[in-house]
């Protein structure tokens, strides 16, 4: 099958039709995801969307119930494939008694062609904490140390699961700069995040996940268009159906006498609402990422 072969050539990691359940909970419900060479792919989504499970599958930590997982064209359980991968996980407690420098040295030993110890330390920006035992690090410093472990093996593909959570502004900027540098040198990166700004700052491509599915995919600009929508809440006598027909309105919900309108043109929507003498309790705000997710994941009306 020539088509498959060509696809495999371009994707460093691929999930095809992957389903994964934990007991009754569906973590992934038929997910397709591919990581292409030289890109930074941001995977966005609320908690429980399946982002971490998707990464765990690509790393071979779990096996899918259905579907196929490939890493560098092989099973991710294959050690040779994982030698091309660096990892930063969300929750990991490294050995307290070892210094950051020692953790890096231990991790580097697993890779065929790692950075030198000093390169890894300076690239991750951990010079100041290199001699400190892991126990003595703050939460943010621990994330920085884990980042150093992720990049020290000179990986072709880097998996970062919410890497900047807990970092101060300065450390976050530094990590972003390092990531941009790595991408410029040809490293592919998969980054999960809650923060749309992080995706905006770094990503070539964004995948939005919700309830174990890919609900949107595109460039940062395309995703931003979803997120710049405004939310208008009010009490009104107008019917949901009427509001839905207005220009710019993308979604309308009604609960407890209040109507919530998602719109790309808040001013026009408000002008229309003002025609209603029964209008009360009007509130306009920028739709957050969670609103965008909520809209993307809404079940179609029956």
């Amino acid at each position: 099958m020539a088509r498959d072969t060509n696809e495999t050539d371009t994707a460093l990691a691929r999930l095809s039709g992957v389903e994964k359940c934990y007991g009754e909970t569906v973590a992934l419900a038929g997910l397709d995801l591919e990581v292409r060479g030289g890109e930074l792919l941001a995977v966005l989504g609320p908690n429980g969307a399946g982002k971490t499970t998707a990464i765990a599958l690509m790393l071979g930590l779990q096996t899918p119930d259905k579907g196929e997982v490939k890493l560098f064209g092989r099973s991710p359980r294959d050690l040779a494939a994982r030698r091309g991968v660096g990892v930063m996980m969300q929750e990991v407690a490294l050995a307290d008694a070892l210094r950051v420098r020692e953790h890096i040295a231990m991790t580097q030993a697993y890779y065929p062609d790692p950075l030198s110890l000093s390169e890894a330390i300076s690239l991750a920006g951990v010079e100041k904490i290199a001699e400190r035992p892991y126990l003595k690090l703050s939460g943010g410093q621990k994330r920085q140390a884990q980042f150093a472990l992720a990049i020290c093996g000179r990986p072709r593909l880097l998996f970062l699961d919410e890497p900047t959570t807990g970092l101060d502004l300065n450390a976050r900027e530094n990590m972003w700069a390092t990531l941009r540098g790595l991408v410029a040198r040809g490293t592919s990166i998969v980054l999960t995040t809650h923060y749309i700004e992080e995706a905006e700052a770094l990503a070539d491509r964004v995948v939005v996940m919700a309830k174990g599915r890919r609900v949107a995919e595109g460039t940062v600009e395309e995703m931003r268009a979803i997120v710049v929508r405004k939310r208008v809440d009010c009490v009104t006598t107008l019917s949901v159906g009427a509001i839905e027909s207005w220009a710019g309105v993308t979604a309308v919900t009604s609960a407890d006498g209040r109507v919530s309108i998602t719109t790309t043109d808040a001013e026009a929507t408000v002008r229309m609402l003002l025609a209603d003498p029964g209008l009360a309790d009007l509130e306009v705000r920028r739709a957050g990422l969670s609103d965008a997710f909520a809209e993307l994941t809404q079940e179609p009306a029956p």
Partner: protein
Amino acid sequence: MTVLAPNQTQLGSIPPMSLGRVIGAYLSDAKFESLRLLRTPAFSIPILAMPVLFYSFFGVLLNGGGHRPPGFADMMFVGWTVYGVMGPGLFGFGILVAVERNQGLLTFKRALPMPTGSYLAAKLMMAYVFAIVVMAILVAVALTLGHVTLNPQRLFTVAAVMSLGVIPACAIGLAIGAWAPASSAGAFANIIYLGMAFLSGLFFPLTGFLHDIRVIWPTYHLVQLARAAAGMPTEGSLAGHAGVLAALSAALLLMASRRLARRG
């Protein structure tokens, strides 16, 4: 576009790992595992000090300057070497594996390209390092204060034979670590450690029911080997004792590593 074998194309960008680097990874894991436990007093002090303290108390002080019946000093030495050699494996594997499983370190290590088996090999090496240190201290105490009738060569033979006891200890510890929750792994390890030591007659002769069931304890088989090495009277066949320990170790290692590979 040229049709290439996908596997070759994909992996082509990753350099192969030389055998030297693979061996280096095993050694580095073993080094850092030992280093971090030496730096962890909560682990290193009980493991290194307890057998020596117990031996000094029961084998030296209570021996009252060598006035006990002949053979008491030798029995104490042999018994406490068995006790000493079991500690690093039981606690090193039992508690650490349970904690690392619980805290996500094991999952992280499985995501990394760590050579297969290096996680367990590093802990085994660590247990050996600690066991050798414990043996060395016990031999030194025996030679200076212990009133043992065994000559130094016998003492070292016992220590050398006992170092094999690290393996069943690690296997039992690994089974605890693979199944027990992190919060109770330490308690399980302690109960099994002390329970086996006393119920298998390391320090005093057993009678009645306990005597009848003594063969179920791995330490019973281990102490028979130690007594043989010391030239003391033994029960049963030495090959049988070694066989029981080997079979137990193999079975536990296999079951536990399967569970760890699957569940992390």
